[in-house]
């Protein structure tokens, strides 16, 4: 084994002085880049699809059987596909849209695709818990559908929505690690290429440790925000 400077390394030993700045830190940066862009785009798209799933339900403000069934079918088709397979299967589409199948941006495309539908379901599920009486009260006050959606439904479900999104950020971190497999870069790639494939368990586990810390931090922030919104 050689480091970038050509030093010989035994399996299971790590030259931290070069591994940290050369591999781990840039990889962490790439992971954060992929996760945040994915969450930005998929977070928005998933919110839209999720709100449509919820509001087009029977008896809800935009009740529409056809739209509801179509959305449900689409979500149910995409959701069960294991992400690692979705990554490969989306290959041709990815190279058409992004121009390449490799790299962070290609990974983001596949991650957005997978995350949008997962987020849509989480959004729908959290919205369903809103007390229908509150919506009825808003209707009785003469509020329009859009006003009810944006000033009643979303604020009422905000706490659970934050927790749902937190759950999904962590899911996307997981996705980004898999994206390393198709050359997406990031922590996943380091763990896979520098750790697993070179039998260097220290690298594998140190990357795992970084991911664990990352996930803990995300959950901490999510919990804090949700607690602030729900005041408990």
């Amino acid at each position, binding site marked *: 084994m050689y480091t970038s400077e050509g030093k010989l390394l035994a399996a299971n030993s790590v030259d931290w002085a070069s591994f940290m700045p050369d591999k781990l830190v840039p990889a962490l940066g790439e992971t954060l880049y992929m996760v945040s862009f994915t969450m930005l785009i998929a977070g928005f798209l998933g919110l839209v699809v999720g709100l449509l799933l919820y509001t087009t339900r029977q008896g809800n403000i935009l009740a529409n059987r056809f739209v509801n069934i179509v959305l449900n079918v689409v979500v149910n088709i995409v959701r069960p596909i294991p992400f690692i397979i979705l990554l490969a299967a989306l290959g041709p589409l990815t190279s058409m849209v992004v121009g390449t199948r490799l790299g962070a941006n290609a990974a983001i495309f596949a991650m957005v695709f997978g995350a949008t539908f997962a987020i849509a379901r989480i959004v729908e599920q959290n919205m369903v818990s809103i*007390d229908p*009486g*509150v919506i*009825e*009260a*808003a*209707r*009785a*006050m*003469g*509020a*329009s*559908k859009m*006003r009810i959606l944006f*000033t*009643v439904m979303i*604020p*009422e479900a*905000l706490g659970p929505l934050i927790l749902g999104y937190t759950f999904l950020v962590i899911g996307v971190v997981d996705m980004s690690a898999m994206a390393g497999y198709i050359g997406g870069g990031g922590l996943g790639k380091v763990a896979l290429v520098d750790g697993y494939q070179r039998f260097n368990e220290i690298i594998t586990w140190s990357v795992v440790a970084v991911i664990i810390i990352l996930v803990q931090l995300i959950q901490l922030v999510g919990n804090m925000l949700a607690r602030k*919104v729900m*005041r408990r």
Partner: protein
Amino acid sequence: MTEDHIVSSRSAAEPMVVLSNVTKEFRVGKKTVTAVDHVDLTINRGEIFAIIGYSGAGKSTLVRLINGLESITSGSLTVNGFEVAGKRESQLREARTNIGMIFQQFNLMNSRTVAGNVEFPLKVAGWDKNKRAARVTELLEFVGLADKAKNYPDQLSGGQKQRVGIARALATSPSLLLADESTSALDPETTAEVLDLLKKVNHELGITVIVITHEMDVVSNIADRVAVMELGKVVESGNVYDVFSNPQTATAKRFVGTAVKTTPVGGEAAELKERHRGYLVNIEITEGNTSIGKVLSYLGSRNVSFNIVQGGLETLQGKSYGNLTLELIGDVISIDAAVAELKTVTRVQEVR
């Protein structure tokens, strides 16, 4: 009491909500359920009108037809002359700002403060910020919760939540307030508080109130007129005293029975007869009937003595009504004469 009723009966001439032949059907799977069945009803401006019925009687559906939360299947329903039937949601929106509504479960937004909840309908109605703030303060003072403006609903008691609900419903100065089982989730003491507030809304602000309830107490406490509903139909309606001092239908009689002891029947009658060997009769007491006392005071000179064994009296709209079960003791001929005499002054029923 009397003065208020003069006011409300004087203004009672003007109809505010008029239902003509109103029917509401729901589709449940392949079946059609008729929740409101050819109802005719007129609610007058300035009165407190109660609709009483057991759950499933269709009263909550009926009240939702008034502000268009549910659409009318057939018939006509006007509020202040505005026809609600056949209107689209967007057309109903403006009408709704003139109709306040409060709910059994209060239906406050937990994500907003008390002030935020009361402010919401003002935002919907497009009030500007300064006017909104002043109005919210005024409303919270009216319901006695000025100090809770910055609290969240989950920090309030049930009674306080309902008072916020009332403040919110009154925000845009509606002429009509719909109260859907507004005290059913509250304990008796808080119920009285909320009912007093509804009376205040009616008397001080002149707002017409339609109260949906399954509690006889609510009706006898605040209503001027009442409609009794059963299986989607209005089976009895009229002045509260008239309906409940002389109930015609089994449903109305059952409601009266929850407020006062009525004529004993079945096991209760058998048990009474076991304990009292005399002849048991039930007599009806109505306001202003002084003849009963006269007849009873003469019974002694007719060789009949009596005991009062059971009964109940209640005051409705300042007038009393109820039932007394008497045990008459004496020989058969004297008792027959006494019963005959009682029958000339009130309704008498033998307890069987």
